[in-house]
């Protein structure tokens, strides 16, 4: 199967500290991967590296293209969508609809086309009632769902989800899981919630202090048993 993400011996240093240490990882098209690890293990850094927000050594190939410069990553962004951990960082437009169409407009769609896409998407996700709401007046759960809608509007091939279900109540969690399980895009999901990861993903890798302990968990039917409690704190 074609690899949509291929990291080869990638390391990231920040403030003299090795945040990612010689990480190699492959994600196939349509595959769903759980990324587990303790706080500060480097999970978000790994996702940020894939979209070019971190300077890294090693080889980063995304959607078959080797990316090293900002221009390279600019080319793949949108096709690889990154859901930020804090929805307040993601939503910056005055209204929900403006935020949802921001990505499609950057992809070159005309405003009317982007609006039509935004309307259809919000309707499909059951969020149409939020279309004219002011983004920073939304509840925490609504902000998360709208953030997800904003990245799905770019029709990505890969989703990088940084703790997408954090702080969601039962109702919003149900909507979020329903939306995510309907996606055909490949995805990497960072979460501390094992039942949710079990439901959404097929395999898992663990980050410990910047090291990826992959392989052992690949394709393991009972991978969840091998996750140490330490990794979830």
């Amino acid at each position, binding site marked *: 199967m074609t690899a949509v993400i291929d990291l080869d011996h990638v390391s990231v240093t920040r403030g003299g500290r090795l945040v990612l240490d010689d990480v190699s990882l492959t994600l196939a098209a349509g595959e769903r991967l759980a990324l587990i690890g303790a706080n500060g293990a480097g999970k978000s850094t790994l996702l*940020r590296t894939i*979209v070019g*927000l971190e300077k890294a050594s090693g080889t980063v190939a995304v959607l078959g293209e080797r990316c090293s410069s900002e221009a390279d990553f*600019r080319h793949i*962004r*949108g096709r690889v*969508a*990154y859901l*930020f951990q*804090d929805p*307040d*960082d*993601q939503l*910056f*437009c*005055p*209204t929900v609809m*403006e935020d949802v169409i*921001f*990505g499609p*407009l*950057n*992809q070159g769609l*005309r*405003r*009317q086309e*982007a609006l039509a896409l935004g309307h259809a998407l919000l309707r499909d996700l059951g969020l149409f009632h939020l279309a*004219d709401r*002011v983004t*920073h007046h939304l509840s925490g759960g609504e902000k998360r769902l709208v953030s997800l809608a*904003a*990245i799905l509007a*770019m029709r990505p091939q890969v989703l990088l989800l940084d703790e997408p279900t954090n702080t969601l109540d039962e109702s919003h969690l149900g909507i979020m899981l329903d939306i995510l399980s309907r996606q055909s895009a490949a995805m990497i999901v960072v979460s501390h919630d094992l039942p949710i990861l079990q439901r959404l993903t097929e395999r898992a890798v663990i980050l410990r202090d910047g090291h990826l302990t992959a392989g052992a968990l690949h394709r393991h039917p009972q991978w969840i048993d091998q996750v140490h409690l330490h990794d979830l704190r």
Partner: protein
Amino acid sequence: MSAGLGIPVVHSRHSPIERLSGRTRVLVTLVIIVFVTVAYRPLVLGAALCGVFLLVLAARFHWADLRGRLMHVEGFLLVLLLLLPFSVPGQPLLALGPFTATEEGVLRALTVVIKVNICVLTALAMLGSMDPVRFAEAAESLGLPPKFARLVQFTIRYVSVFGAESTRLMESMRARGFRPRSNLHTWRTYGTLAGMLLLRSLERARRVEEAMRCRGFTGRMPASAAQSAGGFDLVFGSAFACAMLALLVIEFAT
């Protein structure tokens, strides 16, 4: 658009002003403010005030919102109206102990009050219901440098977020027993608060910029079709130009 600005806006129901393009609205506002700044004839200022009242009517404000907004300005102007007559030399009009109000002072105060009201009402009528994206796009299309337009747009968008963040930090301080007093601890705490706000703002700005880049932002906001002027802009613009020409003739040519 309902309420796009990050700050509380004056709500206007679907109004003729809303049908104008953003460019026309910003341009008309600028022209009126510049003209009123240089105009001095009472007749011209009176006529301009009447014209602006028409704009306010056309904007179909909720009067309660408008009154709330104007209260801040009028309070300041009331102080000006009371003090200025006593501080401008001229023909004595009224003596209160050692203080004398003059005709010139009263005239000056009234002129300032009328000018400020024209400017404020114009800005509220023309721009009050515009969201920051439209406003920045309109200003950019009128020649404002793109970087400055982004700065305006994000300042408007994030001013309330900044306020909310400072409120949260203040509440966190109060929850741990902080009571402001006039002592070194208080000033040091306020210094820490200001520093923390600055740091958090910088961090947030960096993350927002990254999120925008992840969605294809390359430094320019995507163009909006909503900016193109239509027939209604032409009709409004023509009427406005005629009115301005008449006022200019009265002010400078008579």
